[in-house]
C-alpha cells in the first residue's frame, strides 16, 4: 500500500500509538507524550522604553489564550533581529520583566507630608483633591504674567513635572496639555523613544 503523508498522520492520531511512515513503533514515544506538561508562550516584538536608543525586545507571555486566563510576562530578551541592538540589552533593559511583573510595584497613591520621613497611603479622591488645592494655591500665589520688561510670559516657575520613561504616549499627551495650560516651564516627560 502506498502510504501518503496524510494517511500516516491520520493513522498515528487514530491509533494513539501506531508506527511512523518508516516503520518505527511510536508506542514508547506516545507513552511519554501522555505525561508531558505543556505550556504555551507568545513572543511579541516591542521597543524598550528606557532611553532614546530604542532597542528592540521580545516579550515572552505565558498563557494558553483561554479567555479566563490572564497572560503573564515571564521573560524579556533583546531582539536579535533588531538592527539597533542585535539582541543585546543594557542592564536596565535586561531587567524589563521586573518593570512589568514586580511585587514591589505601587498599586495606590502615597503622600509624604512636609517634614515627614515616611510615605502614607492616600485614597485617589483625596490625592486628586490635595493636588488640585495645592496647585491652585501655588499658582495663584506665584504665577508670573509679565516679566520685568513688561512682556507677557504667563509662566509658573514654582511647579515642575517629571515623567517616567515608561509613561505612555497618551499620558504624556495629557501631561503636556495640562502643564502647558497652567504655565509650567520646568517640564520633563522623559519621552525619548
Amino acid at each position: 500500500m502506498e502510504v501518503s503523508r496524510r494517511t500516516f498522520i491520520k493513522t498515528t492520531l487514530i491509533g494513539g500509538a501506531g508506527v511512523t511512515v518508516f516503520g518505527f513503533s511510536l508506542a514508547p514515544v506516545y507513552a511519554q507524550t501522555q505525561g508531558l506538561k505543556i505550556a504555551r508562550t507568545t513572543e511579541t516584538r516591542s521597543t524598550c522604553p528606557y532611553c532614546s536608543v530604542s532597542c528592540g525586545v521580545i516579550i515572552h507571555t505565558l498563557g494558553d489564550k483561554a479567555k479566563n486566563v490572564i497572560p503573564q510576562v515571564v521573560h524579556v530578551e533583546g531582539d536579535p533581529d533588531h538592527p539597533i541592538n542585535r539582541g543585546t540589552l543594557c542592564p536596565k533593559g535586561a531587567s524589563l520583566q521586573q518593570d512589568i511583573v514586580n511585587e514591589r510595584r505601587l498599586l495606590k497613591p502615597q503622600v509624604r507630608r512636609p517634614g515627614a520621613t515616611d510615605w502614607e497611603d492616600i485614597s485617589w479622591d483625596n490625592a486628586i483633591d490635595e493636588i488640585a488645592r495645592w496647585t491652585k494655591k501655588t499658582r495663584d500665589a506665584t504665577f508670573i504674567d509679565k516679566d520685568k520688561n513688561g512682556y507677557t510670559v504667563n509662566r509658573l516657575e514654582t511647579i515642575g513635572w517629571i515623567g517616567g520613561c515608561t509613561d505612555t504616549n497618551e499620558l504624556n499627551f495629557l501631561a503636556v496639555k495640562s502643564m502647558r495650560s497652567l504655565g509650567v516651564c520646568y517640564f520633563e516627560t522623559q519621552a525619548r523613544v
Partner: protein
Amino acid sequence: MSEWWDKQIQRADYLAPRANGAKELLNFYAHLLRAQRDIYEFLRSRRGWLPSGELECDLPVLLDALPEFLKAIQSHGPESLAAEAHDLSETDTQVMTERLMMYWRNSSDIQFFEKALLQPYLRWVFCGGNPQVSFLKNKETTAESGNRDLICATCLSSWEFRRVVCANCGEERPAKLGYFHSPEFDHVRIEACETCKHYLKGVDLTRAGFAAPIVDEIDAAPLDLWAREHGYTKIELNLVGV
C-alpha cells in the same frame, strides 16, 4: 566536515541510552549517521573528483556507496526499512537512479532512501528545501538572546531566519504564533503557527550549547506527537518519520 558528522553521532550516542520514548529512534539514527558519514567520506576522499552540483553527472559515483548503505539499513533499520533495503540491494541500480532523480526534481519527506543517501552528497550544495528544525544561537558576543537559524531537511545547511515569523507561511502576528514548552525537554520547543497549522521544533543552543539540533529534535519526538494531537502538521518529517 567529518567533524560535523562525528558531533551528530556523539550526540546521538549520548542521548540514546538516556532517552525515554525515543530510545529506539535514536539508536537507529546513530547507525544511520554513521552510514551517512561513511558516504560523505567516500565522496570526499575520491581523488580528482568533486561534486558538480548536477546530480545526474554525480550519480554514478554516489551509487558506488549504495551497497554499504543498504547493508547498514538492513542491519539496523526497522523491519519495513530493512526489507526495502534488501529488495533494493537485489535490484538493478537503474531503479535507484530513477528514484533519486525523481526525488531530486520533486522531493518528499516520506522517501527515506533517497533523502538519506543524498544528504551526505548535498553537504556540498545548497538545495533550498524545507526546514527540518530551527535553532537559537548567540551571534553577538554580548547578547544573551539567540539568533534563529533553520536547518534544511534535505541538504542539512543552515540559514538565518527571523525569530518571530512562521517558517512555513511567513505569519508574523504574535497572537498567531505559539511556542510550546515542556520541562521534560528544557531546550526544545514546538514553534507552531495558527494560520497555516504547521510547526517545526526549535532547539535553544543558548540553554544547551552542546546539543545537536537534528539529533535533539529526534530525542524530543514526544513533542511531535503532542503537536499532531493538537492539530499541527510538521513542515517536514525527519529520517525516522516523526
